[in-house]
């Protein structure tokens, strides 16, 4: 019999600690597949954030560093500048990248650091128990917005990709989603493109924002979470390429 599907080697054969219906497992696999397809495992260094995906090294079989909350783009800068031949990527959630690490991502992009950023937006702080993130939707109930997020007092969902896209040093920005198989395939294409740009020494930062479900802290079934992403989240966080780079 012909094998039509197999686990990509960089994705470890290990049950994850993620909740049922979480998107991290899918996003991890996409990154692993891209690393194997591009044959860059031997020169790739990953950066794990603080958040649910802090244990990234348990699932991806590449060299990985775990760093302080939000500081991944600064750590990536230190790595890439001293090792221009290595492929450096950070994998960061929305608390990590869009709250505490806003300065680091903006300045890494501003300096046109040649790194790849995988930005997981699930509109909530997961690991700490479901608090409001900068990306939390208006009206969304979290432990720190028990009445639902109100624009007055709690502000608006922060659109990091749109912010970054205006910076000349951010050369490729795309927002994808994991809410159905077609979108997952598209997210993989975007991740691959972001890595390819770095491999080809494109002169700046690439970021792929991935809308990802958190059924546990959205208080929804996994199926309902996928539906909510498609119908609600994509209205606030529209999918598509915000910035392109041509050689």
């Amino acid at each position, binding site marked *: 019999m012909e094998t039509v599907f197999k686990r990509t080697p960089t994705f470890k054969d290990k049950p994850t600690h993620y909740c049922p219906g979480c998107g991290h497992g899918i996003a991890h696999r996409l990154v692993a597949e891209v690393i194997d397809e591009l044959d860059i495992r031997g020169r790739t260094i990953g950066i794990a954030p603080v958040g649910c995906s802090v244990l990234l090294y348990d699932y991806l079989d590449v060299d*990985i560093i775990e760093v302080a909350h939000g500081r991944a783009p600064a750590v990536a800068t230190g790595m890439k500048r001293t*090792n221009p031949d290595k492929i450096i990527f950070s994998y960061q959630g929305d608390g990590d990248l869009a709250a505490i690490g806003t300065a680091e991502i903006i300045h890494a992009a501003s300096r046109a650091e040649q790194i790849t950023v995988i930005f997981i937006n699930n509109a909530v702080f997961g690991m700490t128990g479901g608090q409001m993130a900068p990306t939390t939707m208006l009206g969304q109930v979290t432990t720190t917005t028990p009445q639902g997020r109100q624009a007055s007092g709690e502000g608006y969902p922060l659109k990091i990709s749109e912010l970054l896209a205006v910076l000349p040093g951010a050369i490729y920005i795309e927002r994808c989603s994991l809410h159905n198989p077609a979108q997952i395939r598209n997210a993989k294409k975007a991740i691959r493109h972001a890595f390819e740009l770095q491999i080809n020494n494109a002169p700046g930062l690439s970021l792929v924002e991935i809308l990802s479900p958190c059924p546990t802290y959205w208080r929804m079934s996994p199926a309902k979470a996928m539906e909510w992403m498609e119908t609600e989240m994509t209205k606030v966080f529209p999918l598509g390429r915000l910035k392109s780079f041509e050689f």
Partner: protein
Amino acid sequence: MNERILMSGNEALSEAAIIAGLDAYFGYPITPQNEITAYMARRLPEEGKVFIQSESELAAINMVFGASATGKRAMTSSSSPGISLMQEGMSYLAGAELPAVVVNVMRGGPGLGNISPAQGDYFQATRGGGHGDYRTIVLGPSGVQELVDCMPLAFDLADQYRMTVLILADGILGQMMEPVVLDKKPQRKLPPKDWALTGAKDRGQNIVRSLWLAEGALEKLNYKLQAKYKQVQQNEVLCEQYKLDDAQIVVVAYGIAARIVRSAVDRARAAGIKAGWIRPITLWPFPTEQISRAAEKMRIFLVVELSCGQMVDDVKLAVAGKAPVVFYGRAGGGVPSVDEILERIEQLTLPEVKNVHKSVSA
């Protein structure tokens, strides 16, 4: 380069770091250490090495974290308020066991303080500074040549023990110019950096981390760190002693304060007072044994700092009640004169004062 050249402390330490094999410097502007960033910005590109002006001290220390994790020699520098911001990164460096060199050209505090020289960051430097049960090696040079000599030592110590080495200088040391010889090369035979993140080519995955959730795992790491720190305490203490044999009074000071003390003690000797000094060069590990030995002879200890009294605690711990320990310091940018210190020495060695101190210590 073997000739003597005139350089400021900030520039001399920068060149010494480059000679010591610095691969990358990351820094954010703050007075009184801006000559370091300017020097590095000019010199490192000439050497084909990396200079980045970071967006903050948080970013600077994390750039060091990243470069160091790949096995490169990396450093940053700042002054007191900026070093406070770096404490998070220094705690992570300790947890992840990464080597790093950090220079603190201390200024007056607390808060924004001022830009005058001070030694008010001793507690922060020698007690770890950030969160968690860890240590950093702290060097307290007292002149520009010693700053220069500290740099290769700092990088070697950092690599050997996989620790942060903090150079505790101050605004005077950073700014003042002295003749220096820039020929110090790293001396030590160092272990290979087989833990470094270089891409998992033809080997298993390397992980650099400081999170240990499994029961007992973090406790184990802590004991491993403590064993390492004990080794540092046993092997790396540096201190200088002067005329202790017959001294009735021992003045303890580090860094720029020790330079002033040296003159005061010489003048006291010229006036017939049996004075000596001890100058800790490593502030952690602290020369506890050397001070303890000196205290066996029931002398008076005078501790002089550019602070309201921080190192004096360590001196008291070392003396352990065997002799009186008196403090004199100036803070917030104030610098004691030779006369001020000499006056204290004279007061403390008057026969009736010595008796008072004996009765106090008894």
